[in-house]
C-alpha cells in the first residue's frame, strides 16, 4: 500500500516537473554577476533629483534640431523625460541619492546628422559651474553623487576620433561623477571604473513594426549589413574598425554561409530574424546599435571588438548570450561559428527569447517596466549607499577646475 502510494507520488512529481519543464523550454532566466536583477523594480530603492537648468542646455537645442530625438544618441533626451515623470523623482533635493543634470551635449548636429563634439566640453563645464554656484549639492561631494548621460562615441572624452579622445581623456570636472555612457572598453581612458554602460538608442516602434512570426525558419547562417571599408575617412583600410571589418569581407565574401554586403535592403530587420548569427563588429567605436537589433530579433550577436564592455554588463551575462571573437581570430570565424555545439546555440537562443532581455535593451516611449531606463536606475541603485568618503568637508576641493585644453575653458 505504501509502496503504491510512494510510486504514484513519484509519478505525479515527474509528470508535473516534465510539464513545467516543457513550459519553460522556450526561454531561460537571465542572471548576471549581480544576480537575477533584470526584473528588479527600482522604485523605492533610490531617489533622484532633477536640476532645473535653463533651456539653453536642453530644450533650445532640441528645438533647433529635432533630429536629436531619432539618432542613436537620443538616450540622454529620453532619460531626462523619463525621470521627469518617474516615481523615483523627488522634488526635495535633500533626500535625493542621485542628482540628474539634463544637458544634451550631443545635440549639435552637422547637416548630415552626425554630432559635433567640439562645443560639448564647454557646455558641460558651464552647466557644472551653474550647478555648483546655484545649488550646494555639487560642492558637498564634488559631483560624486551626480550622474550624467554621455552617449557619444567615446563617452565623456567628447571626441569622435579615438586618438584625440584618448588625448583628452574624461573631462576633468566629471572625474568623480558617475557616467552613463554607451562606450565601454576595458582599460581605456574613456571608461571610468564606476560607469554604467547602456545600449545605444534604437527606435522600438520601428523594430516592432517589422516583426515576423516566430515559426518562420531561420535559414541564414551569418548576417551582416554595413560598411567594410570607410572610403571617405580611411581609404587604405586598416584604420577603420582596426581592420576587422575589412578582414571579414576579404575572408568571407565568397562564402555562401555568410550573407554580408554593404547595401541596405528594406527587409533588413526581417532578414535578421531569419538568421542564426548576426555580426556586430566594431566600427570607429566598439559599440553599435546592431547589438540591440540582434537581441530584439533573436539573432545571436557575434561580437568582434577586443575588450569591449557591453551594456549592463553586471546584470546580463553576455558570454552566455553572445559569441565573442577576438579580432585576430576573424579569418577563422567560420571555423569558430560552426564548431559551437548545437546545445550551446539552442541555449543562447532560449536566453535571447526571454522577453526581459529584449526589454532591457530598448528605450520605449512611454517607459515600460524592465526597459533600459529601469536598468539604468537599477544600476544606480546598486551603487548605493554612497561611500562615506565621497562627502567632502567644507571648503575641501578635489577637482581641478582649470585642467584640460585651453579651448575648453572658454565660456559657452
Amino acid at each position, binding site marked *: 500500500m505504501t509502496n503504491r502510494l510512494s510510486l504514484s507520488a513519484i509519478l505525479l512529481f515527474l509528470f508535473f516537473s516534465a510539464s513545467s519543464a516543457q513550459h519553460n523550454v522556450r526561454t531561460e532566466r537571465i542572471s548576471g554577476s549581480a544576480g537575477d536583477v533584470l526584473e528588479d523594480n527600482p522604485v523605492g530603492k533610490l531617489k533622484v533629483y532633477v536640476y532645473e537648468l535653463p533651456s539653453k542646455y536642453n530644450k533650445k537645442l532640441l528645438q533647433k534640431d529635432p533630429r536629436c530625438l531619432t539618432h542613436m544618441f537620443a538616450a540622454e533626451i529620453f532619460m531626462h523625460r523619463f525621470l521627469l515623470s518617474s516615481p523615483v523623482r523627488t522634488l526635495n533635493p535633500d533626500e535625493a541619492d542621485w542628482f540628474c543634470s539634463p544637458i544634451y551635449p550631443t545635440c549639435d548636429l552637422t547637416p548630415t546628422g552626425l554630432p559635433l563634439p567640439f562645443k560639448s566640453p564647454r557646455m558641460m563645464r558651464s552647466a557644472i559651474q551653474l550647478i555648483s554656484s546655484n545649488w550646494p549639492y555639487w560642492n558637498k561631494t564634488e559631483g560624486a553623487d551626480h550622474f550624467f548621460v554621455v552617449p557619444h562615441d567615446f563617452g565623456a572624452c567628447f571626441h569622435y576620433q579615438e586618438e584625440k579622445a*584618448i588625448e583628452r581623456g574624461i573631462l576633468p570636472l566629471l572625474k568623480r561623477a558617475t557616467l552613463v555612457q554607451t562606450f565601454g572598453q576595458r*582599460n581605456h581612458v574613456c571608461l571610468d571604473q564606476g560607469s554604467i554602460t547602456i545600449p545605444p538608442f534604437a527606435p522600438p516602434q520601428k523594430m516592432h513594426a517589422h516583426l515576423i512570426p516566430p515559426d518562420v525558419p531561420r535559414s541564414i547562417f551569418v548576417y551582416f549589413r554595413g560598411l567594410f571599408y570607410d572610403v571617405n575617412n580611411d581609404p587604405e583600410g586598416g584604420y577603420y574598425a582596426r581592420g576587422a571589418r575589412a578582414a571579414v569581407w576579404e575572408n*568571407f565574401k565568397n562564402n555562401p554561409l555568410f550573407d554580408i554586403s554593404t547595401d541596405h535592403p528594406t527587409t533588413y530587420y526581417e532578414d535578421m530574424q531569419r538568421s542564426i548569427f548576426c555580426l556586430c563588429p566594431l566600427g570607429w567605436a566598439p559599440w553599435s546599435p546592431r547589438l540591440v537589433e540582434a537581441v530584439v530579433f533573436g539573432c545571436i550577436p557575434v561580437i568582434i571588438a577586443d575588450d569591449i564592455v557591453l551594456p549592463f554588463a553586471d546584470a546580463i551575462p553576455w558570454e552566455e548570450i553572445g559569441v565573442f571573437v577576438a579580432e585576430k581570430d576573424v*579569418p*577563422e570565424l567560420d*571555423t569558430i561559428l*560552426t564548431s559551437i555545439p548545437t546545445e550551446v546555440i539552442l541555449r543562447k537562443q532560449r536566453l535571447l527569447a526571454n522577453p526581459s532581455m529584449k526589454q532591457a535593451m530598448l528605450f520605449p516611449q512611454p517607459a515600460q517596466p524592465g526597459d533600459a531606463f529601469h536598468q539604468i536606475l537599477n544600476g544606480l541603485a546598486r551603487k548605493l549607499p554612497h561611500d562615506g568618503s565621497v562627502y567632502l568637508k567644507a571648503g575641501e576641493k578635489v577637482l581641478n577646475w582649470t585642467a584640460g585644453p585651453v579651448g575648453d575653458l572658454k565660456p559657452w
Partner: protein
Amino acid sequence: MKLLSAFRSSYLNRRGTTFRSLDPSSFDGGFIPKPSPSSIFWLAIHCLCCLISLILGFRFSHLVLFFLFSTSVTNLYTTTAGVSQLLKLKPLEKANVTAKSSRVVVGRHGIRIRPWPHPNPIEVMRAHQLLERVQKEQKSLYGVRSPRAVIAVTPTYVRTFQALHLTGVMHSLMLVPYDVVWIVVEAGGKTNETASFVGKSRLKTVHVGFDQKMPNTWEDRRRVESKMRIQGLRIVREEKLDGIVVFADDSNMHSMELFDEIQNVRWFGALSVGILAHSGNADELSSVLKMNQEGKPIQGPSCDSSGKLVGWHVFNTQPYATKTAVYVDDKAAVMPSKMEWSGFVLNSRLLWKEPVDDRPTWVKDVDNLLDGNEEIEDGPLSMVKDPSMVETLGSCGRNVLLWWLRVEARADSKFPPGWIIKSPLEITVPSKRTPWPDSSSKLPVVTKEAKYNQPATEKRSGKAKRIKEQEQ
C-alpha cells in the same frame, strides 16, 4: 627624374607621420638634382622594391624596412596554423602613453586574410546541420503542437496527362513534413502505370481499383470521381486511419502551406481554392478576363468582418456560359463543379464506425453514405447538416492554398506505356546543328501527312526520301 622624385615624395606623404620614425634618413628629403652614386643606388633599390611589390602584390618595401628597423616583435602575426602573414602589413602606432596598459592599440592595423579564403566543405555541412537543428527546434516551439497524419485521397485513371498530374501530387506529398497516407483510387482497375507512381513515392500508400471506366464527358467524370472519393473514405473507415483527410485531385497543385494550415482543423474545414479555368486559347482568355473583372477565380468560404462564416464564394461560370467544354478533350474552358471536393478537409474520426466521444452534431452520420445507400449530389457540403458551422482555414479563405486546373489531352492521344520508348520512333526530326553530314541546315517541316503525300513537290520529295532513309 622629376617624376620619380615626385612619386617618392607623394609616397612618403601618403604614409604620413607614422613612417617618419622608422625611415632611414636617406629616404626623406626631396629632390636631389645631381645624380650622385648614393642617390642612384637608393633609386635602384627603390625601383627594385617597386617591381617586387608589383609582382607580389603588397608593399614589399614596407616589409623590408619593417624587418630592418622595427623593434617590437609583437607585430608579427604568425598566430595559429593556417594564418599566414599579412598581405597588407604596416607597423603599428603606439598608443599615447596612459597609466592603463591596454591590449588594444589605436592606429593602423593589418587586414588579416587567410591563404585560402574559401569555404571549407566540412564546415558548410556542419553549418547546414546546425540550421536544420535550429529549424527543428523552432518548429517544435512555435509550430504545430501535435501534428496529425495527412490522408490524401486521389482519384485517377490512366491517360496521357496522368504522368504529369500524378508526379505533381506525388512530389507535393513527399515534401509534406508530417506522416502521409496516400490513397489512390483508380478507375478501370489497378494498372502498372499508376502502380509505378505510387511505388516511387516512398510513402505509405493504398492503391485500389474502381470497377467503372472513366467516362468521356466532364459531367460524368465528376460523378465517377465523387464515387471514387467515397470509396477512398470507405478505406479510411475500414483501416481506421487517424488523421486529416485531404482530397488531393491529381491535376491540382498544392502549396506546402496547405498542409501546415489543415493541421488546425478540428472536424470539418473549408479553404479557398484558386480556380484556373483555362481553355488554352489566349484570345478567349483575355476576353473572358475582361468580362470577369469583378469576380475572382476563387472557390471557398467567405466571412464577414467579425470572421464568422456567412457564405461561399463560387466561381462565376457566367462568362463561360456558351463556351464550356463538354468532352474531356474539348478546346473550350473546363468548368469546376459547384463545390470542389478539394476545398474541404475533414477529420478521419468522423468516418469511423465506432462513435467517437465528441463528434459534432452538425455533421451527418456518414455511415449511410459510405455503405453505398445514398448518392452524394452537391459535393462534400451535403455531408454537413449545418453548413454555417464549418471551420474556415487560411484566415477565413483569404489565403489561397491550392489551385484547381483541368488539362487533359485528346481522347485518342497515345503515349508510350510507362513513358519508356521501347520501339523506335516513327518520326525523327534532325536538330538544327546535327553532327551527321547529310542533313540540311534548314529544319524540314515534317508531319504525318508528309509521309503519305510523297511526291507532292520537288522539295517535299527530297524530304520524304530522307525520312524514308532514316526509317530504314
